[in-house]
């Protein structure tokens, strides 16, 4: 139980990173690879948030009731992840638009068949 408590989030995050990278390594459909990227990014975000967790902590927001500051979880990873999520969205959108254009030009999304640029 203790082990689970300590590691379950890390397991989730590393699992996502592993699966994302695995998709990127093995799959050759472009959309699939982009899905892999998105999973990878989610994993990284989860990992960073996990770093800032505090046992029995509260969200880093002061309200009328909660003015106690020393049990708040670390706000910095949250700020970082907020940024990272948006950046991830930007990259994904760009990647998908490129995928559309790629399909227009090559009529396939199989990257094994798209090898004009090599050597």
């Amino acid at each position, binding site marked *: 139980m203790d082990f689970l*408590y*300590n*590691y379950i*989030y*890390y397991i989730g995050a*590393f699992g996502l*990173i*592993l699966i994302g*990278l*695995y998709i990127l*390594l*093995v799959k050759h459909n472009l959309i699939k690879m982009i899905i892999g990227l998105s999973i990878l990014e989610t994993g990284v975000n989860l990992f960073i948030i*996990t*770093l*800032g*967790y*505090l*046992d029995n902590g509260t*969200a*880093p*927001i*002061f*309200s*009328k009731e909660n003015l106690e*500051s*020393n049990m*708040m*979880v*670390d*706000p*910095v*990873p*949250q*700020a*970082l992840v*907020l*940024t990272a*999520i*948006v*950046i991830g*969205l*930007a*990259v994904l*959108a*760009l990647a*998908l*638009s*490129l995928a*559309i*254009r790629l399909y*227009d030009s090559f009529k396939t999304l199989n990257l094994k068949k798209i090898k004009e640029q090599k050597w």
Partner: protein
Amino acid sequence: MKKFFSLILLIIIVVGMIYTIHQIPFGKNQSKIGKYFVANGKDETGAANIVTSVVVGYRSFDTLGEVTVLFLAAIGLGAILTTTKKQNHDIEKASLILNTGCRFLFPLVLLFSAYIFIHGHLSPGGGFQGGAVVASGFLLIYLACPGKRINKVGNTISESVGGLIFIILGAIGLFVGDRYFLANFLPKGELNTLFSAGIIPIIYIALGFKVGSELNSVIDKMMEES
């Protein structure tokens, strides 16, 4: 074979990470800067939501970069997609229920998003989340009424002006008070009230508009193609 090899590689990488994780016990960790922000954030910036005070206050330069990234994505998407030749699709009409439902929901979604980014310094949420909600509202309309398009000029202007407000507010900070970029030069106000936290709500509102219109233009460009 390749899959097996890939798995071995990935497992090595993960093992490396696990070794490092041992240094970071879960749930015990409170970082130096995190402690500082939690302790002093509300006094220095006046925002009740410490994440907001970090995102728009201490680390607002990151946020500027982040907004730029989003801007870039919208622009880059446009640059890449404009060069395609337009194809004619027969537009499928959505059902009446969906249509009406969306039209009904749309103002509510916008209102909600406005709430989110106006109260960014008080409660969870802020410019990004609000902007994303705006975009999903427009997405609803796109799905429900396939012919409808956003006003490009208005969208572009709100996109640009949002970014400009951010930078100009930052630059004003160079001339007042402590003279640093993105200084919070307005009065902090009382904690947990709407008019508090100086420039943070203004920036977040500008960001809300900017992010919303950028995401809109992203969706617009993508939809234009389909």
